[in-house]
C-alpha cells in the first residue's frame, strides 16, 4: 500500500522494473547455469560430449523442438494449450515428403510453403474450435491430436517415404551448415528472434499476454480476444508445419507415425523455460532455452550411458524442479515488493 495521502510529490520509483526484469532474467540465467553445469560435468566425465559433432547433434535435436516451443508459447501465453502439434508435424512431414517423392522436379520452396500453409490450416481448425466455438483448448486440441494423426494414417495407408525417394537438394537442407552451424538451428534461431521481437514490441504481442493474464479484462479493454487467440493457434500451426518439413529433411525416412508424442517434450520445454502454464507471462527465449536444456540432457545421458528409462524420470524431475523454482521466485517477489513499498513510503 502507498500512503499517498500523507506525502508530498516524489519522483516515481524505479525499483519495480528492475525487480521484474531481474526475475525474468533469473529464470533464464537459471537455465543457462544448469546448461553450464551439465556441459561441465558431462564434458569432464566424457570429453567426447564437447566435440564439434556432438554439439552439432545437440543443436540439430534442439532446433525442431525449440521451434515448436516458440509456437506453443504463443498459445500458452493466452491461457490455452495446443496438444495437436505433434500430429501437425507428422502430417506436414509426411505430406511434404510424399509430394517430393511423387513429383520429382517440384520446386522445393513451393513444398515448404505448402507445408507451412497446411500447418496454418490445422492451426486455424484449432483456433476456430477454441476461439469461436469456445471448446476448452485441452479438449479441442486433444481431439485434433487424434484427428490430424488419423488423416495422416489415412493418407499414408502404411506407406513410408525413404530418403532415396527425395531430391538431394531437399535432404541437404537437413544436413547443411553455415559457418559450422546447422542450417536448421539457424532457421529456428531466426524464428525465435522474430517471434520474440514481435511479442515484446507489437501491440498484438502484448495483447496475447493481456488475454492470458485476465481474459475478462481483455474483453473490456476492447481487445479482439477471439481474433488474437485464432492468430496464436494459426501461427503455432504454421510453425509446426515448418517443423514438419525440417523433420523430413533431417531424417529422410518418413512414415505416418512421425513425431508421435513430441507434444509432451514441447510443453515440457515451455514449462521448464518459465512460461506460466496459466498464461500471462513467460518469453519465447525461455521456452527455447528450455528446449535446449532438455535436448542437452538427453544427449548427456546417452554419453554417460544412463539407461534410456531413467531419462524420462530425469526429465520429470527437471519439470518439477522448474515449477518449484517458479513458485519460490513468485513468493520472493511478493515479499520484496511488499518490503520495498513500505520502505519507499517511509
Amino acid at each position, binding site marked *: *500500500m502507498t500512503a499517498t495521502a*500523507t506525502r508530498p510529490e516524489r519522483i516515481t520509483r524505479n525499483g519495480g522494473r528492475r525487480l521484474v526484469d531481474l526475475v525474468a532474467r533469473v529464470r533464464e540465467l537459471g537455465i543457462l547455469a544448469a546448461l553450464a553445469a551439465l556441459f561441465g560435468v558431462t564434458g569432464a566425465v566424457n570429453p567426447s560430449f564437447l566435440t564439434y559433432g556432438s554439439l552439432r547433434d545437440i543443436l540439430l535435436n534442439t532446433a525442431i523442438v525449440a521451434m515448436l516451443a516458440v509456437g506453443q508459447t504463443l498459445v500458452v501465453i493466452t491461457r490455452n494449450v495446443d496438444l495437436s502439434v505433434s500430429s501437425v508435424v507428422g502430417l506436414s512431414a509426411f505430406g511434404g515428403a510424399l509430394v517430393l517423392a511423387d513429383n520429382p522436379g517440384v520446386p522445393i520452396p513451393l513444398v515448404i510453403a505448402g507445408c507451412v500453409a497446411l500447418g496454418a490450416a490445422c492451426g486455424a481448425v484449432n483456433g476456430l474450435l477454441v476461439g469461436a466455438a469456445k471448446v476448452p483448448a485441452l479438449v479441442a486440441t486433444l481431439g485434433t491430436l487424434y484427428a490430424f494423426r488419423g488423416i495422416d494414417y489415412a493418407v499414408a495407408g502404411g506407406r513410408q517415404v525413404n530418403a532415396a525417394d527425395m531430391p538431394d537438394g531437399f535432404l541437404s537442407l537437413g544436413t547443411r551448415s553455415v559457418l559450422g552451424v546447422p542450417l536448421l538451428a539457424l532457421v529456428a534461431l531466426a524464428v525465435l528472434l522474430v517471434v520474440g521481437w514481435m511479442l515484446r514490441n507489437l501491440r498484438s504481442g502484448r495483447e496475447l499476454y493481456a488475454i492470458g493474464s*485476465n481474459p475478462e479484462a481483455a474483453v473490456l479493454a476492447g481487445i479482439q480476444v477471439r481474433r488474437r487467440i485464432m492468430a496464436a493457434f494459426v501461427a503455432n500451426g504454421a510453425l509446426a508445419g515448418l517443423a514438419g518439413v525440417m523433420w523430413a529433411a533431417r531424417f529422410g525416412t518418413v512414415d505416418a507415425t512421425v513425431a508421435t508424442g513430441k507434444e509432451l517434450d514441447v510443453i515440457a520445454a515451455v514449462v521448464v523455460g518459465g512460461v506460466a502454464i496459466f498464461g*500471462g507471462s513467460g518469453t519465447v527465449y525461455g521456452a527455447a532455452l528450455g528446449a535446449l536444456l532438455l535436448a542437452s540432457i538427453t544427449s548427456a545421458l546417452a554419453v554417460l550411458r544412463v539407461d534410456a528409462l531413467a531419462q524420462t524420470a530425469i526429465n520429470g524431475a527437471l519439470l518439477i524442479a522448474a515449477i518449484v523454482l517458479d513458485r519460490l521466485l513468485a513468493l520472493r517477489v511478493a515479499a520484496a*515488493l511488499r518490503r520495498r513499498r513500505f520502505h519507499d513510503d*517511509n
Partner: protein
Amino acid sequence: MEDTPVLALSGVSKAFGAVRAVRDVSLELYAGEVHALAGENGAGKSTLVKILSGVHRPDTGQILLDGAPVEFAGPADAQQAGVAVIYQEPTLFPDLSVTENIFMGRQPRARLGIDRRAMRASAAELFTRLGVQLDPDQPARGLSIADQQLVEIAKALSRQARVLIMDEPTAALSGKEVARLFGVAKALREQGCALLFISHRLEEMFELCQRVTTLRDGAFVASDMIADITPDDLVRRMVGRELDALFPKQETTAGEVALSVRRLTREGVFTDVSFEVRRGEIVALAGLVGAGRSEVARAVFGIDRWDAGSVEVDGKRLRPASPTAAMAAGLALVPEDRRQQGLVMDLSIERNIGLAGLAALHRGPLISRLAERQRAKDWAVRLQLKFARLTDPVNVLSGGNQQKVVLAKWLARKPSVIIVDEPTRGIDVGTKAEVHRLLSELAGTGVAVLMISSELPEVLGMADRVLVMHEGRLVAEIDRADATEESVMAAATGRTAA
C-alpha cells in the same frame, strides 16, 4: 445547456433471465456536465454502465451518440466512439506492468513497434496529475484495492474520451485521493467532457454533479438538477420511503477483554501495535488508506504471519499464521476485498453464506442442505439481499449485494470477536443503517467488534473507542466523548504524537 446530449439512452431495458435489471430507462449525458446515477444496491446502475460501454446489448431501446442511434457490438465500439469507463470492479492484468495496463491496446507507436519510453512517460505524467506515487514499471499484481482503483482512473483518463463513466470510483479511496479525483473530474468537465458518476456517498454527488438520475429496482424514477433537490429528496427517490439517519450505537457496558493484541509487528508493514477490544464494545480502527489497518487485521486473523508480538482471544494465545486456529477461537474477519478474499465467485449464494460455518450445518457426517438454505434465507432477508434465486452464483450479484453476502457469511457464524474491514463499502444508504444496526446488536449480545472504516461519520457514530493508525503505527486512542472529525483526522495524518 439544452443542446443535444453527447451520449444518451432512450427507453433501454435489459433482462438477465428472469431478472429485469434495467427497465425502460432514459438518460442524457451533456458535454460539460457531471451526471450522477443514484440507486440502491442492485438498482441496475452497473448494468446501465455496461450497456453504455458496449458490454451488454440492450434488449429494447436505443443508444444515441450525438443524437443519432448507434449500436455498440462490443467494448471496442464504445471506445471508438469516445466512451471511457471505470468499472466497479478493477479489470487489471496482474502479470503486466502498471504502464502496460493503462495503455493496453492503444500503446503509442514508434517507427518500429511500441514506443516504450513515451508510454512510460505518459503513465508517470498521469500519476503526477492524480497525485499518486506508483511506479509505472511495477506489476499490477499485489496492488492494494485503492491503488488498483487509481490505475483504473489513470487508464480511463489516458483515453482522453468525450464521455467518462465512473462506477463507484471512490469506494476504495480516502479523502485526499477523492479530492484529487474530483479536481481532475472538474477540469475535464470544464474542457467539455461529459461525465457519469456513481457513488453511494450522497455528499460526493452533491459536490461534483449537476444532474442526477435515480433508479429503483431497475426502473427510472426521476432526473433532476442537483441544485433543485436536497439529499433527503434524493434518498426518498432511491429508497421510496423515509429513512433514519446513520444508526447510532446503543450504549452497552463493556465486559472482559475478548481480543488482546500485544506489540504485534510484521516487518515492513506495521510496527508495535497493541490494543484490546472488550466484549460488547465496538472499537474503530481509523486511518488513511495504506496506514496498515487491513494488514493488522489480516495478521490477527492469521492470514499473514507476524514477526513479533502476540494475539490473545479470550485469554488464550493464538497460534500465529493459522486462520483455522483463529476461527476455532471464535474470531471472524470480514475482509475488505470481497472478490478475492471474501467469496467463491462461482459458488451459489447459499453455499457462500454457509461456507464459514459449515460445522453448524452438519447433521451427522453430512452437511444439511436444508439447514444451509434456511440460514441463507434468514440472512438474505435481514440484509435485504437482492437476488433471483439462492442457487445463483454470487458473481451475477451487484457489487453491493456481494458485500452483503460476505457479511452474512461471517455473521452467521456467531463469532465472539468479529473484525469487519470496511463493512459498508459499496453498500447503499438504506442497508448501511441496517449493517450498523446489526453491528450494534452484535455488540449488545456481548460480541467484541473491531471495525476498520475510512468513513468518518461511520467511525464517529458507531465506535466506543477510536484507534488511529498512521504509517504502520498506532498513534492515538480516542474515547467516544473526545472523538471528532478533527481529532481523528489530525492523528491519521500524523499531526499528533501518541
